[in-house]
Structure formats: structure tokens, C-alpha cells
């Protein structure tokens, strides 16, 4: 039983924390990076959507003028 407890203890301590920027200050910057990913994803999607809609609006307007 105590052997098991020791093994578990060593296992927990074995994960030596790497120190880089995204891990500093309680890994808060990985949260920030996540938010940036979401924002960038939504922004790119909306930009593409807007381009498609502009094209369609132009198409509809041209159709309207020619008819």
C-alpha cells in the first residue's frame, strides 16, 4: 500500500513543468492565445462571408439593371 502511495507520488512529481511564455503566470497566456484563435477564426469567416455577399449583391443589382 505504501509502495503504491510512493509510486503515485513520484508519478505526480515526475511532470517537470517546462518554463516558456505561454506557461508563465499560471498559464494565463494560453487562455489569451485561445481567445485570439477564436477571434481570428470568426473574423476570417465573417470577412469571407462579406466578400461572398458583396459578390451576390453586385450580381443581383446587375440583373436588376439589365432586366
Amino acid at each position: 500500500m505504501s509502495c503504491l502511495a510512493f509510486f503515485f507520488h513520484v508519478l505526480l512529481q515526475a511532470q517537470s513543468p517546462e518554463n516558456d511564455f505561454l506557461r508563465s503566470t499560471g498559464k494565463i497566456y494560453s487562455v489569451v492565445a485561445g481567445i485570439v484563435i477564436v477571434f481570428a477564426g470568426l473574423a476570417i469567416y465573417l470577412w469571407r462571408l462579406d466578400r461572398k455577399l458583396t459578390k451576390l449583391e453586385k450580381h443581383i443589382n446587375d440583373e436588376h439593371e439589365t432586366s
Partner: protein
Amino acid sequence: MAKWWWKILGWPCFFYVLIGGLVTPLSPGLTGVVPTTAIAGETFAIKIMAYNTQFSEADKTYVWLKNQEGQYLKASNVQVKSNNELQGEFIVPIATSGQSFTIVVYNTLDGSAILPDGIYVSAAANVTPTRVDGAGFTDEPGVDLVKPEGIRFPYRSILNETIRNTFFHVALWMAMFSLYLVGLYHAILYLRTSRKDHDLWSEAYNKAGILFGILGIATGSLWARYTWGSWWTNDIKLNMATIAMFIYFGYVILRSSFTDEEKKARVSAVFSIFAFVALIPLVFVIPRLTDSLHPGNGGNPALGGEDLDHTLRLFFTINHRLVSARLLACPTKIPAVKALRPRA
């Protein structure tokens, strides 16, 4: 205006979660201890490293070792080195050796913080562990552990500040699911009415759902890198969610492979019903049946205890993405755009 109330509601929800979710402090926590092993029967000093604590400002900080029966052993000679570092001395009775102890730290400013299984105390080489009784341990810590005022998110080791990702990562999947649900609704309506608009709305909702799925995988992968230690693990929920994603990618490919508009609409409506039916067991059932690192799956409790306590729920229940996700579903085919345009 009245028709688009959710667009306006989306903004206060978004800022409430973004600001509240990032500004609310984390509870203090213990990050490590040196050394991690000690020998019973002799005095040893341990150095405790902490996060978000105010040891220097607090009147007095107490340190205990807590054994597996829940009894406390108070440290003598506690020295505060800095706000986030202190030292305490212990003599662990030989009878209680051969186990790991939880370290408990308390002061009135920070409240209590624990490090489960922080230190392992072994018996000295030349003594048998049952010689002395558990003297020194008491059933109560001897000091009232009062929770300080104010809202703080729970501190969990490994997760640390990334517990805030609950508001951003989990919400994406909920938004994806609700978008697919509306896509399903329009698919069924198309099969019942054969109106072209329903097909286009169904496509728009499913495509917006795919966007949220991709973002969910991207943020989840980043979260996994800094907590579980790898961009991708063999966790059942990750793999099942990916399969569900591929089924919906299949939907997009299927649509592009038809030239006959009516056949395309009919087949893709049927496909999106099947895709949604497949999504439920893949994301909600199978991960619960086996082991998973995700909370709420495979005997891993979620929505209770420290995983989602009342402080996190304060910001999680107001699901900003759920409110604003519908904004992003926009059909990009001519009949639907004509329907969207204000009629003169």
C-alpha cells in the same frame, strides 16, 4: 429591431463573459514543495511555493500536513520568504510514516490552499513503522479555516488559470451543437415542404456549425498542449468529435457533387438528419462509456464540485456564443439573399 433582439443581447453577454471571465482572480494554490520526500522521526524543513498568495501581507500563515485519515500536524517555525514562498518544519511520528501527506496552508487573506499528496514520508531504515503512536496529529487544525470574501475561481493544479477556458472552449461546442440542431430543423422542413429556402438555411446553419467545430478543436488542442502536455491525445472525446466533424465535412463535399439542384437539396437534407443522429452518440454517449480526460465523461465528474462551481457558473451559464452564434449563419445563394433583402 424587435426581431433581432438576440443580436443586441449578444454584445453585453459577450463583454460580460470576456471581462468577468478574465478579471475574476483565481483562488490561491500551492504549486510545489521542496523536498518531496522526508524521513519520519527527525525534524525536516520544507519549502512551499504558492501561486496568487499574500504570505507577506497576511498576519500569520499556518502550515499543516494532513494524513490520509484527515488528521492535522501543525508545522513549527513557519518562515515567510516572500508572498509566494514559505518554509515550515515538521517532525512526523514514525507510526504514521510510509504514506504521502497533503499540505495545507492557511491565512486570513488567502483562505486555505492545499497540495494533495505533496510530500511522501518514509520510515527510517533501521526502525519498524509501528513503534510509536501517532502523537502530534490532531483531528482538527486548531484554527478556524475561514473562506475570504469575494468571488474567486477554483485553483486546480495543472489547469491553473486555464480553468477560464471553460467559458471559451466549451461554449464553442454548445454553439456548434445548437447550430446543427437548427440545421436539422430546416432539413426536416425542406423534406416536408420542398421549399428551396429551407435547404439554403439548412446549409448555412450546418456550415456555421462546422466553423464552430473547427474553432472548438483548435482551442481544445491548445488547451491540451498546456495542461495534458500534448497537442493531441488519444482521449475518446477528441477522436469521436473528430469523426463527427468529418461527417459534417462529408455534408459539404456531398453538396458540391450534385449538379441537379433538387436532388442536391433532397439528398443533403437526408444526410444532415443522419449526421445529426450520428453526432449524439459520438459526442454524448460513447465518451461516457470509457475513460476520458474530459470532465463529465467516463466516471469523471463534471458540473459539480471544483470543475464547475458556483463562481464559474456565474459566467458560464450566460452563454455568450449561444446567443450570438445564429448571427453567423448566412445563406450565400441568390434566392435566400433575395429573401433577406428588404422589399421596397
